[in-house]
């Protein structure tokens, strides 16, 4: 086993451990903290995939913004979340069936694919070409439409979320 493989396995196992803790932890705040751990582990895996930009974007957006937002929302809805609450649905054992089924199906289908065990990389060794990405984002033959559509998506999310959550009188509890 090479050093890279050991690093990969450590990062992957840590991420999976954090993900399992996210699912089974009862206190919501601790669950959010475990989520931060899982996101950090995923950032390490992004780094191992030779991506530069998305490592920092993962930390900046997921940990710096989304996790903080989740923590704020946990604080807002915290009153009823103490330990003596039931954390799973009554028939939670049944959830193993779809989850396990999807996992088995995915691995079965993927293992029949030729490129499954390829080790050769085609990505540039010094990270993605951010300049080309930026140029393609605004070029009419490139990804101009997704670029503008995503801004409309963000606008819709902003307006919708404020409309739903903001209550003019008193600003909520």
């Amino acid at each position, binding site marked *: 086993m090479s050093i890279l493989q050991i690093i990969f396995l450590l990062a992957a196992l840590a991420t999976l451990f954090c993900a399992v803790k996210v699912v089974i932890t009862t206190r919501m705040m601790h669950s959010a903290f475990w989520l931060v751990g899982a996101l950090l582990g995923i950032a390490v895996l992004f780094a191992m*995939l030779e991506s530069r930009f998305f490592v920092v974007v993962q930390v900046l957006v997921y940990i710096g913004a989304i996790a903080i937002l989740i923590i704020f929302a946990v604080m807002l809805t915290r009153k009823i979340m103490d330990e003596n609450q039931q954390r799973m649905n009554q028939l939670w054992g049944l959830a193993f069936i779809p989850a396990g089924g999807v996992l088995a199906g995915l691995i079965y289908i*993927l293992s029949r694919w030729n490129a499954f065990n390829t080790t050769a990389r085609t990505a540039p060794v010094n990270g993605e070409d951010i300049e080309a990405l930026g140029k393609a984002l605004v070029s009419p033959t490139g990804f101009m439409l997704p670029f503008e559509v995503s801004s409309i998506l963000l606008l819709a*999310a902003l307006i919708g979320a404020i409309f*739903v959550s903001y209550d003019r009188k008193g600003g909520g509890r």
Partner: protein
Amino acid sequence: MIPLSWYLIFAAILFCIGLFGVIARRNLMSVLMCLELMLNAVNINLLSFWSYLYGKDLQALVFVAIIFAAAAAETAVGLALIISVYRRRVTVNANDLDMMKG
């Protein structure tokens, strides 16, 4: 060198942990966090395909960026809905939301 299969199996396991949480947990906040895990598994898949098979193309990168935007939008609206539900019903358990029941 690490084979592509390791990343794909890792992403599949992560996706299924998230799926299990989405189905099994009662708390809506927790369901949302598990959705984040599933989206991250998708991102790992996309980036590993980019890294191993389509390193010269930009589609995968744009796709990942769009998934980031979609995840942000989903979190924002989802949390807003949870907060609004909490305000009206003082609960965030999915089972207790039965106002549509006849």
